[in-house]
């Protein structure tokens, strides 16, 4: 017996907005695919598709048309947006209200919010603001059986029910097709200033650890990449400082003690985001933040020797390597395989892009443990959503 002093005998009413026509139509397509066993490749703007990830799809499920802002209440700093909306479009709208979504994934600036969330992609700003899992408040997605699920909500704090939002964030569409997301925005900082400092990763990390200031981003740039971006010729720390005038001024003073610093235009961050060549292998290596300088020293030299670029999000312990792929022949693949193979032994790794012929040989499945298999089976029992994209077994 549960003795209870208070409670609700009166049931409250469900007050959910109806599912949009587009979502309903998409859900119908997925349901049909499930019944017919048709594997679907979910596509957004198509900018990030050439990642080389294996995907055994029979048909594509495009969301590029599914764009637009559903709800934006600037006073709440929250926005609900359709999954196909490009990040740069979203950025323009928020900026008009003095706000931003501090999420800057690498690649094309017009990648969609849906793809960003589905792939859990982030960039230098993640040092201060976290990754997509820290920005998403709620989402609507279509499971592999065509059920429309609405997880989370539109408020900044919410622990109602099990966290399906975190589950589908970074699931690469394999647990559901994202159709709508609610995200948390921030007010733009009063001052947004970027400094370039020629220093080593070790020095930079020591400064970050001891400093009273929390930069918006602190990205280590390898010498070749710095040259390429036109910000220097040696290993360079790009430091993005935000806050009120006094704070940013003091932080810049403090950083200048580390090495000679100079101001660079904030557009340098977009330059960095879009720097990777059209044909490239991209690997992210990571370790604990105390080991990141050591990792950087080992990785940067390998990458530079191979003619590639490296940059590191120091506070997160991540070193990202971009290696040019000269041609699509076997010799080049063998060369690449050697370099990537050497890199993968250096730390935890996430492969972003790789020629597809190498993918299966070099990248272990990401969702092969019993729990992941179980989750996949529960949400997409027919295995119709992006099958194979996580290297998972059918």
């Amino acid at each position, binding site marked *: 017996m549960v003795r209870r002093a208070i409670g609700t*005998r009166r049931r409250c009413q469900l007050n959910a907005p109806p599912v949009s026509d587009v979502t309903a139509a998409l859900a119908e397509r997925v349901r049909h695919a499930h019944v017919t066993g048709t594997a679907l490749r979910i596509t957004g703007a198509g900018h990030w598709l050439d990642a080389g990830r294996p995907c055994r799809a029979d048909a594509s499920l495009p969301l590029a048309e599914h764009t637009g802002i559903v709800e934006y209440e600037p006073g709440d700093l929250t926005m609900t947006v359709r999954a196909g909306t490009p990040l740069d479009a979203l950025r323009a709208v928020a900026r008009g209200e003095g706000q931003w979504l501090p999420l800057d994934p690498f690649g094309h600036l017009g990648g969609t919010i849906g793809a960003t969330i589905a792939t859990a992609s982030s960039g230098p700003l993640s040092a201060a603001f976290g990754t997509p899992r820290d920005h998403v408040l709620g989402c609507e997605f279509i499971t592999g059986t065509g059920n429309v699920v609405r997880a989370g909500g539109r408020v900044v704090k919410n622990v109602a029910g099990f966290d399906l939002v975190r589950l589908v964030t970074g699931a690469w569409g394999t647990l559901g097709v994202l159709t709508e997301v609610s995200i948390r925005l921030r007010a733009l900082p009063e001052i947004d200033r970027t400094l370039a400092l020629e220093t080593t990763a070790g020095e930079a990390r020591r400064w970050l650890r001891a400093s009273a200031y929390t930069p918006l981003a602190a990205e280590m740039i390898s010498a070749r990449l710095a040259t390429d971006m036109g910000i220097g010729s040696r290993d360079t720390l790009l430091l993005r400082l935000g806050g009120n005038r006094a704070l940013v001024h003091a932080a810049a003073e403090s950083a200048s003690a580390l090495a000679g610093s100079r101001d660079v235009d904030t557009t340098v961050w977009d330059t960095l985001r879009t720097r990777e060549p059209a044909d490239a292998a991209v690997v992210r290596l990571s370790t604990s933040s105390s080991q990141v300088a050591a990792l950087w020293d080992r990785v940067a030299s390998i990458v530079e020797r191979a003619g590639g670029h490296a940059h590191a999000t120091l506070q997160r312990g991540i070193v990202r390597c971009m290696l040019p792929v000269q041609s699509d022949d076997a010799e080049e693949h063998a060369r690449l395989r050697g370099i990537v193979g050497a890199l993968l032994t250096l730390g935890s790794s996430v492969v972003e892009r790789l020629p597809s012929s190498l993918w299966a040989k070099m990248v272990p499945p990401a969702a092969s443990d019993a729990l992941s298999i179980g989750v996949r089976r529960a949400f997409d029992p027919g295995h119709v959503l992006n099958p194979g994209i996580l290297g998972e077994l059918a």
Partner: protein
Amino acid sequence: MKPSPSAIPAACAIPGTPLSNASAGIDACVHCGFCLQACPTYITLEDENDSPRGRIVLMRALVDGSLPLDDADVRTHIDRCLGCRACETACPSGVPYGQLLEATRATLTRMTPNPFLARLVLFVFARQVLLRLAMLGGRITRATRLSWLLSRLPGRAGFAMAMLESTRSAMRRRHYTPTGDGARGSATLLTGCVMEGLFANTNRATERTLVANGYSVVETPQQRCCGALHAHAGDDDTARMLGRANVAAFEQSGADFIAVNAAGCGAMMKEYAHLLSDDPTWRARAAAVASRVRDVSELLAEAGPRSGGALDTTVTYDAPCHLLHAQRIASPPLRMLGAIPGLTVIPLDGSEHCCGSAGIYNLIEPDVSDRVLAPKLANIAATRASLVATGNPGCLMQIGAGLHQTGARCRAVHPVDLLDASYAAQAHAHRTP
């Protein structure tokens, strides 16, 4: 598991008992659990039945009749409470836990009496002749060093001897005549049972420091044991008898303040009005007396206290529960120590936690008491201080015995002894320039 709403039963199953009279205090508990980490027995025994929140649940069960008064588990967990009242400091709802505990014990002992040893101790403390004999016996044992010899014995007997041994004054004998103008008013000392019996030097030091700080000291000859031990153990009839005797005695003394240097006794006397609340006449008289009660540290801190001569040593301070939690007196003893030049005061981690003495608890629940004492000794050792100051005889003996048995060089001392030694050092320096 569908929750079904139902009102909480309001009926009292044990009308007329001390607990039923106090049961309004139970309702104040919102079950938030903030008391858990403040409770030494919960930390030690790791069972919520041995926590304030758990004990309140058990009390409520007694009141609503869902558990009988002779339930053995209830008795065990109520008995195991140290009564340190640290939970009261942590409680945002103001649950009068100390009063609830005493009412529960008073109710339970009517059903099942306390163990023999407890009854014997309470019997002795309630009778002046027996008490004086017992204290004399103690002093003889101490003077003949028998206590030192027997303190090696295992078990309770050895610990009791170590307690006795630890009452040997840690400070050198002090001879000086304090001077003061008495401008701060008159004070009379609750000489106490154990204090006068085993810590007579501290009582004299208390009188001297009070005089040195502008109080005139008068005597109160008819005073008795304060009754705290009896109240804590559920023997409220005896506690009331002693309370009435003291109220009458201190009414006679006419002093502005009743100075108490034993935190447990002071806490009891400040609550005389509650103790005697069953009788309106006595209640008013008790309230008047209680309003004059001060811990000696309060009186001294009020006066500064005046600073004395240098003592070149290190000390750490352990707060007696009945000073910190029951009387909510935190800084005055530290101000006393701060008035001593040359004295280095090292903060004690967990100073707010009970040492496990708790009146006669260390005799009745030796196992739990030892386990509560162990971290206290470790924290004291970590300070590397030469002395640990604490203003309650139970704590002085508990910590003193623990230090003695572990062979530590640190000694327990009452803060007034330190201040007194400082004044003596000053007087000595003036005599021999």
